[in-house]
């Protein structure tokens, strides 16, 4: 009996077009069932609102922005996006197990250190979080779901994100390749 070598699927990914069709079908189903699209940054926003509310409730009420999302009869975390994001975590975890990709690491280009990558990731996240609130959405919410219903705002945001990312990624080329 020879030992079958365990095949390494960790670099195997779905065919991108197939993945895109699946994603499109998921979007269609989402709209069909719930009438709304997907989202991601909204859950981060809910977390921030909840944190602010529990740590500094008076500030939360005074703040023009945060007070919009607080209501007496509904906890801000009890919203559609938060549940969806929990599902995203679970689904990605499942896929990670299936493909054998579960591995703690810091992914970075060989030309920079891990530490630098982490710092840059933090700054990138801050910028993205800030921008997502201005544009009222991120790539999943505004761009993807917006494009599914041909929303003008969705298209504009998507072009803004990808256009500016193209420009700036060449400035920061060393971070990646």
């Amino acid at each position: 009996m020879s030992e079958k070598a365990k095949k390494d699927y960790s670099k195997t990914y779905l065919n991108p077009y197939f993945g895109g069709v699946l994603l499109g079908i998921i979007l269609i189903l989402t709209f069909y069932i719930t009438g709304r699209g997907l989202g991601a940054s909204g859950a981060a926003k809910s977390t921030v609102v909840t944190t602010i509310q529990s740590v500094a409730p008076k500030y939360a009420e005074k703040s023009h922005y945060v007070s919009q999302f607080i209501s007496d009869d509904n906890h801000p975390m009890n919203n559609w996006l938060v549940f969806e994001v929990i599902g995203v975590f679970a689904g990605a975890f499942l896929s990670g197990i299936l493909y054998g990709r579960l591995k703690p690491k810091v992914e970075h280009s060989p030309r920079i250190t891990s530490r630098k990558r982490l710092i840059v990731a933090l700054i990138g996240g801050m910028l993205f979080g800030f921008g997502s609130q201005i544009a009222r959405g991120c790539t999943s919410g505004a761009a993807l779901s917006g494009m599914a219903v041909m929303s003008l705002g969705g298209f504009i945001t998507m072009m803004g994100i990808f256009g500016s990312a193209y420009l700036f990624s060449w400035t920061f080329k060393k971070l990646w390749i």
Partner: protein
Amino acid sequence: MIKKYFIPVVLLVGLGLVLVLLPPKKSYDEMPPEKLLRQITSSSRFITPDEIAERMIEKDPSLLLIDVRSSDDYLKFTLPGAINIPFEELLNPEQENILRQEGMDFIFFSNGSILSDQAWILSKRKGLKNIYIMQGGINQWFDNFFVNTPPGESAPASELELYQFRKGVRQFFTGGDVQATPQNPTETIQLEKRIKKSATEGGC
């Protein structure tokens, strides 16, 4: 080029072409007949002139009177603050936008109840909400407030109260003068046609 993608690409472009070449959809936005029947048989759509007058005196901003008669009739005489949407123009998309404003109650009236009722049925077919009918129309309005016969001496107190109320309404609206002049219709409506309110929640 990659041959294995040939079929999916053809399928994609084909579906896109079919979509473009589809004949335009007939959409009716209809209310199912059973629902319409229920609404017709319940009389919840009627509002009496007394109630309307009371709301007008209280300057209720959510009230909008709509005269569904022809524009000639409207210009000769109409109720205070009423705008004119002639019956024939009810299906006009511009007029429909007026009636789709949220948070407003629209009261159709005509000389009696028949034309306004027909207008009501039409609007219901279009799925419009918050549409009511002034019961008895202008004729009833006049009867209540201007003909207003005082009740006899043996009448119950409530009738007497009603009589006084109606007298007050007449004074409020006319200050002595019987005829009410039609408002300039263009002033009373502020429309934001572009902003369609979304019924579903959403966002990221």
